[in-house]
């Protein structure tokens, strides 16, 4: 469904990604783990077009998308929940959710999906009139996921959804992620620092270090891999 073929991405002069190749099939949950600054977020940005790769190609459903603008890529069916949530702080919760459906024009469908979101996260229904910036970290994360879901994506990119959240909330978020995957067959590409957690929900995983993919295997195998254990799972 999505293929990154040997992409190299730069920030100005600094090379952030080197020869990254990743394959994602329909319906999978794939995770990308690695240390802070390894290039995980850059990988997502290369897919969503915010920092397009300088060389290599990104293929989505058989079409190259690495030269499209970010908003076109959203049209193709890729939504992102960025690192740090990036809620529009002065829009209300409902408006934030609405923004997710920016590209859709089926009023009925949107209405139904909002209902669905409010079922999924009842707390958001309670706070629909509140400004997004006043929510707690966990609520913001739920809102960010809802916003991305409103676009009816075929591929959902999640960047560090557990970042800075209480363990209890993290578990809740991860349950929802799995639920989204099973209920809607939405493919999920999950970037996480919390490798343990990510590998438990994922089908397959990639390990990144210094802008390169150093390992890729099924989540099960990665969990029991000695070097992964040492570098990313232990204290």
């Amino acid at each position, binding site marked *: 469904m999505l293929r990154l073929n040997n992409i190299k991405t730069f920030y100005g002069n600094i090379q952030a990604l080197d020869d990254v190749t990743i394959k994602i099939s329909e319906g999978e949950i794939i995770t990308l783990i690695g240390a802070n600054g390894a290039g995980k977020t850059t990988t997502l940005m290369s897919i*969503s*077009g*915010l920092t397009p790769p300088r060389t290599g190609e990104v293929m989505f459903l058989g079409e190259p998308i690495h030269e499209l*603008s*970010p*908003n076109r890529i*959203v*049209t193709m069916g890729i*939504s*992102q929940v*960025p690192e740090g949530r*990036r809620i*529009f*702080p*002065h*829009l209300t919760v409902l*408006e934030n959710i*609405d*923004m*997710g459906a*920016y*590209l859709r024009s089926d009023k009925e469908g949107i209405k139904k999906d909002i209902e669905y979101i409010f079922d999924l996260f009842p707390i958001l229904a309670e706070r629909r009139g509140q400004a997004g910036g006043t929510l707690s970290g966990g609520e913001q994360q739920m809102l960010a996921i809802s*916003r991305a879901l409103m*676009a009816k994506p075929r591929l959902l990119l999640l960047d560090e959804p557990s970042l800075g959240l209480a363990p209890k909330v993290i578990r809740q978020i991860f349950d929802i992620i799995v639920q989204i995957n099973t209920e809607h067959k939405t493919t999920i590409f999950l970037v996480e620092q919390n490798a343990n957690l990510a590998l438990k929900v994922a089908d397959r995983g990639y390990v990144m270090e210094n802008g390169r993919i150093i390992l890729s295997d099924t989540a099960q195998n990665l969990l029991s891999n000695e070097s992964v254990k040492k570098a990313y799972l232990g204290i």
Partner: protein
Amino acid sequence: MEHFQYFIELFLGGLTRGSIYALIALGYTMVYGIIQLINFAHGEIYMIGAFTSLIVAVVLTSLGFNQLSIIILASLIAVIYSSAYGYTIEKIAYKPLRNAPRLSALISAIGMSIFLQNYVQLAQTSDFVPFPSLIPDFDFVEPFAHIISTQEIIIILTTAVVMILLTILIKFTKIGKAMRATAQDREMALLTGVDVDLVISVTFIIGSATAAIGGFLIASHIGMINFYIGFIAGIKAFTAAVLGGIGSIPGAVLGGLVLGWTESFATGYISSDYEDVFAFALLVLILIFRPAGILGRTTAQKV
């Protein structure tokens, strides 16, 4: 009683003047809100609006059109032209600098402003040009004519209408929501599928259109225009925008009115020589003591 009437005159004068500032300030505020750039060339857009409406009006008069159609056509064409200019300016001078330091964009804006001033000066004239008085006096205003003229009423009403329309646009329409989202987080807006370039262009177009309306109204009110009117008006409108809290639509209107009254009362009661000094002094004081403006919100500095 005489005192009171003088006060009322100054009050209404300030209201009219403030409405004009508000109209121009709206454009400033919208552009600043969305790309955090002081669009120095905005005053020039207003000046071009005034000139375009003058040219159209004169041409149409010589062709023998009636007054109403002249007013409509002149303002309409002024709006279209100014919008086109606003759009082009953004594409040439600001878009390539979107990721550059803000200083670069500001200097580019000043350059654009200088360019447009001299462009009009060369293409037209550096002298003041008389502007035909287009707006007729309504009969029902007659009893109050010594306090307020028809033109003034129209100016005030237009500002109110424009403000309400803009508020509706921004609060309730899809493009309005996209504008607010872009202003708050441009990258995230892109990631929700907003065509940010388009939204910014639309903002410039709307801002320029309001400036053109302002240009048309003030030109017919004062009756004289030249290539330099944009600069002073631009600075004052910017003052108004900052005064009300830059980025806020009602703030721009409020700021415009406050500035208008300040000038009106200060020149009326203190001295008419220092009209512009009052405006600048107010600007300096506001920026130093309350940079977020009257309706603005203070944001904590991130470290």
